[in-house]
């Protein structure tokens, strides 16, 4: 007597999960350390000198963290209101910060009380920075002005009143003591030269500018605002180079990797994306729990620090080479040989009577139900999409799929519909789910209109199919164009297509998808 053969779950090829050098590099971080700050973390800045402490500006404080500490090594709390933009000077000795109360404060990193207070702005100061010769401070404020201050005298050197909205970001040149760039909510970026009294280049970003970044070479400037990240060429007088639209919410912060080869952007959509700066393609993506406001990379990419709206500071440290090896080593380690042979190496004595223990077969829950022909329960107990699809396929083979789908109440049916709408357009599952969806429509045709929940899902399904059909129509058009291109460019040869060429795969993919979707579309219209 043969035993019950469990349902085979086919292994599908993973889509879009390619292991590249980038994914290996950017995945090689430890689990994040999370620190709760008092309010939204608006700025993170690394000290340019070792040991590379970093200043975290959150609510009314600035905390200084050491590279490996989870407690702040120092705090600046003498702010009357929300602090903004705590930045180190290039020698790591001084720290400047703006404040909601329009006063700019300068601190000695070893002291506690502000060394200087720069008063002159009339509204909150969101941008502060040191110029490259270290004795001047540049600030930008909500009163639409940006100013230059002299540190020793604590006097205002110059005021620029060109922006027509809040100035929310800015950066000074590291190579030239007189240049700085500001970004404003009036959608413009302006490059100022301290030697003249006005801006020298104006660039229109098209969205309120949230963040601005200079390349180390200072030939390119990157701006972020709205959903866009734009790159400008300063040497060509501020000509736009690239516009990237990879986030679906406002981009809040920009950062370059230590070698300058990768650009990182953080957004309110809770993602941090990594771009290759040669072709500006997204090469990696980090997910976070809340909207990201600020982002910084430690020198040599040793850690990624991210500040979020919920006040959580997430710190990811790079794995040391031994650690990254150790983990894989641990995975490979198996229980010792002794565990396996425990009790099995007992040699029976001469008179012993051997009773062999029957090997128990373990069946998963859905297989147990299938064995007992409890088809509806089997369908309900399959959880992962691959498993559910395999169970649906198995039920179809047994000719009992209709029975398993029928007789459901509102909740069970809406769960089923939810699964189908979620997975139907996946081409791996479509051949199985399309007939199942047809069957559901057939079975529940008479009760449509009785449950608002189910009706909404059916409408959604219809919408989804319409989108899918349009999408495929477009792709078929593209394919047709490709075919004409190929036909004209390739000399007439007997071999028509290479097995792994993209167009061939595309072709196969669409051929069966269009057919199925159209079929169900017709049915859906008839029923709904």
């Amino acid at each position, binding site marked *: 007597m043969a035993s019950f053969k469990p349902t085979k779950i086919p292994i599908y090829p993973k889509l879009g999960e390619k292991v590249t050098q980038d994914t290996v590099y950017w995945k090689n971080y430890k689990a994040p350390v999370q620190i709760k700050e008092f309010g939204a973390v608006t700025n993170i800045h690394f000290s340019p000198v070792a040991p590379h402490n970093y200043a975290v500006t959150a609510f009314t404080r600035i905390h200084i963290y050491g590279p490996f500490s989870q407690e702040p090594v120092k705090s600046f709390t003498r702010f009357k209101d929300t602090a903004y933009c705590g930045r180190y000077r290039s020698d790591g000795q001084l720290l400047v910060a703006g404040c909601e109360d329009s006063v700019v404060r300068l601190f000695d990193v070893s002291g506690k009380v502000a060394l200087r207070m720069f008063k002159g702005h009339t509204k909150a100061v969101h941008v502060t920075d040191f110029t490259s010769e270290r004795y001047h401070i540049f600030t930008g404020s909500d009163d639409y002005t940006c100013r230059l201050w002299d540190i020793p005298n604590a006097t205002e050197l110059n005021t620029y009143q060109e922006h027509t909205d809040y100035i929310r970001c800015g950066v000074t040149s590291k190579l030239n003591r007189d240049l700085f760039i500001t970004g404003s909510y009036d959608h413009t970026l302006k490059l100022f030269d301290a030697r003249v009294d006005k801006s020298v280049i104006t660039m229109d970003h098209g969205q309120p500018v949230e963040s601005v970044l200079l390349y180390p070479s200072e030939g390119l400037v990157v701006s972020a605002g709205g959903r866009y990240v734009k790159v400008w060429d300063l040497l060509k007088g501020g000509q736009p180079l690239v516009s990237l639209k990879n986030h679906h919410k406002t981009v809040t912060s920009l950062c370059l990797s230590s070698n300058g080869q990768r650009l990182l952007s953080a957004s309110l959509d809770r993602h941090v994306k990594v771009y290759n700066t040669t072709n500006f393609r997204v090469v990696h993506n980090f997910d976070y729990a809340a909207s990201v406001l600020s982002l910084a990379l430690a020198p040599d990419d040793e850690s990624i620090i991210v500040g979020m709206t919920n006040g959580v500071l997430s710190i990811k440290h790079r794995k040391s080479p031994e650690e990254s090896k150790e983990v894989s080593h641990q995975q490979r380690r198996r229980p010792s040989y002794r565990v396996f042979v425990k009790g099995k190496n007992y040699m029976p004595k001469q008179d012993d009577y051997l009773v062999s223990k029957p090997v128990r077969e373990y069946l998963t829950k859905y297989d147990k139900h299938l064995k007992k022909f409890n088809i509806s329960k089997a369908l309900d107990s399959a959880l992962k999409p691959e498993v559910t699809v395999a169970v649906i396929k198995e039920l179809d083979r047994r*000719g009992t799929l209709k029975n398993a789908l029928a007789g459901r109440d509102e909740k069970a049916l809406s769960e089923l519909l939810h699964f189908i709408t979620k997975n139907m357009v996946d081409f791996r599952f479509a051949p199985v789910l399309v007939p199942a969806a047809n069957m559901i429509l057939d079975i529940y045709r008479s009760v449509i209109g009785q449950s608002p929940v189910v009706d909404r899902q059916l409408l959604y399904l219809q919408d989804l199919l319409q989108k899918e059909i349009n999408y495929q129509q477009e792709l078929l058009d593209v394919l047709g164009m490709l075919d004409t291109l190929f036909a004209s460019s390739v000399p007439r040869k007997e071999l028509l297509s290479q097995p792994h060429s993209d167009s061939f795969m595309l072709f196969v993919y669409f051929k069966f998808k269009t057919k199925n979707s159209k079929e169900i579309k017709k049915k859906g219209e008839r029923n709904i």
Partner: protein
Amino acid sequence: MVEHGDIRVVHRGGIARYCRFLCERGIFCCCRFLLCGSGYEVKVFSTSTEECIHDLRAHTDLVTGVLLRPSNHLQAYSCSTDGTVRLWDYTDGILIKTYVIGYPIYSIYTSANHSGVLFVVTPTSDKRSEFQLVAVHLPQSGDQLVEAREFSAVLSDVSSNPAATSFGRGGEYIASAKGLQLEVYFFKKQKFFLKEDNKKGGKNTFTCLACHPKDDCIATGHEDGKIRLWRNFNHKKEYTYTTLHWHHSAVSSLCFTPEGTNLLSGGIESVLVQWRYNQESQRDFLPRLGAAITHIAVSPDGALFCTSHSDNKITIIRSSIQVSAVIQGLVKGDSVRTDLMVDPRSKALVLNGKPGHLQFYSLQRDKLLYNLDIVQQEYIHQSGLEQFEVVKAAFDAYGNWLATVEERKQKPTELELNLKLWAFDEQTQSFMLNTTISAPHEARITAMCFCHSTDSQTTVLVSVSKDGHFKAWQLAPATHTEGPSWSCDFVGAYHSLVPECCCFSADGSLLAVSFQEVVTVWSPASWELLTTLSQPPGAIRNLCFGQLTCSKYLLGTTDKNLLCCWNLLTCSLEWSTSMDVSLLLSDPFSENMAAFCCQAGCTDLFVFKPSEPRPLFSHKAVCLGKVTRAVFAPREKMLESCEETSQWLNHSQLYFVTQYMVNTQHNEATWHYSREALKNMGLCIRIFTDTFLVYKSVYRLRWLMS
């Protein structure tokens, strides 16, 4: 008589069992022997070792029933459609007596109450489709051959199914069911009818019945899966019945245990159900017996049960509902859809077996080696379900790789295809699944072959499909995470024509793929199209490269009655002849090729060398019907025949399947003809001295089948 000296067609297939009669009349003796009618003979099996102990051969037609003699349990009666009942001593395998009845007998019954009387079912003299139950009084005589003359009709219009008639209560009455009517004949009183009403249009036709050995109770099985227990039937119109329902389709066999404590039932679900008599809610099940149960029998002491199955198998079951032994012949599948193949390692014949399996059948030992599970899915025993079927299989040159194609077709648009590649595992001495490619093509795969080169390191598999493409699959080397697996190497097409067959040359340097009327020749090394050959009109039906010294020839047959031979060195037609070849194959161990031509219902065999269009050997009317598959199997020992007509069988034997059976063509000095049906019923193994008889029996069989 046979004209060709010593070349014979031998029909074979191992334990051919006449399944229909096997278990109803298959009987146990002292729990040690199992008797069953198998084709033209009665086989005696040991219940413990599963070995066949005796073949009781004397009947000249199908054995339809076997029965223990009630007065002497070491003797058994067997009946046959040749019109005789024979008495055997089955422990020694000796024929004791032959009673000539004179009419074909379809089943036989006897009872201890009626000594000297046999009850047989024979056709009524005027109509062959109507049967009657006749009591035959056996004459007392010392002769070997006795003619019985004393007949008395007991019941008219009975079913010829032996399961539909049974003696009750030690022979007090006999019950017989046919259609919607159950008849009970009391020997002391008279006969009596129970009529089943066809209520609510249900399918409650009787299929089988069994009488309780002690009680006045008749159990009947019905078409709709119900079992009814009839009681109180000795008073007119006052009978009662209770209904038991577990089976979801027709109950095919019922049997009470000797003490009457349990009732066994079986059907297409292939589950043996044991009901407690009078406590019918308590049931025991023995599920997954492999194939539909056709008959159930119980040993006289009740210790063993046996079930016969539709796939040519007997299962012996202990009374504790545990399988103790399985006697399996060549598995009878629904049809042979794969080619006949020879496993290069075990030299076993490989073809479809159980649903979703390939069977490996040793030709030398005439024994089933094992079934390889290809589909690896739970088989649901339910009629009308579309299941996965193995439709193509191929071995590579050394038997290291096996490729199989399984398909399931529910609607024309929804074809499910899987290509699986199996690697031979030295440790388990079996094939292990290596790669599964789902949907390798968009339409049915029509041909598949491995590259048969002996020296190349890479193995190439080519599959040809109706979607207009042929694909080459190659073994990709092992990566550090996983072992070697197969992937697509090349997709070829030719002017969007539909390819039909493919063939590799003997050294693996050329691949020929036929696209309707055109044969394309490709180089597997670079996948370049080398040349095209065609001989219109007529699409190519078969393609074959010559072997050994004739490897420069490529042969093809077209459906417009043409056999062409191309010379690949000159790329021109060498010769062609007009023949309606249905199947062409080459012998891998010699230069010879065999062509089967179907003409007027018979098939002719021609054997020739590609170098010349003159046949070495021809045999008119090798068999009836069309030859669907054939294979050359290597011989264990080479023969040293010098005669020109039989030389071609020195290295190998030719096996072929017609629409009905497996045959083999080989030369043997003996005049043994064994016969086996794969397709419809079991056939028989029988000694003949004349080919004419073989063909006569085929006609008879066909008549029986129709």
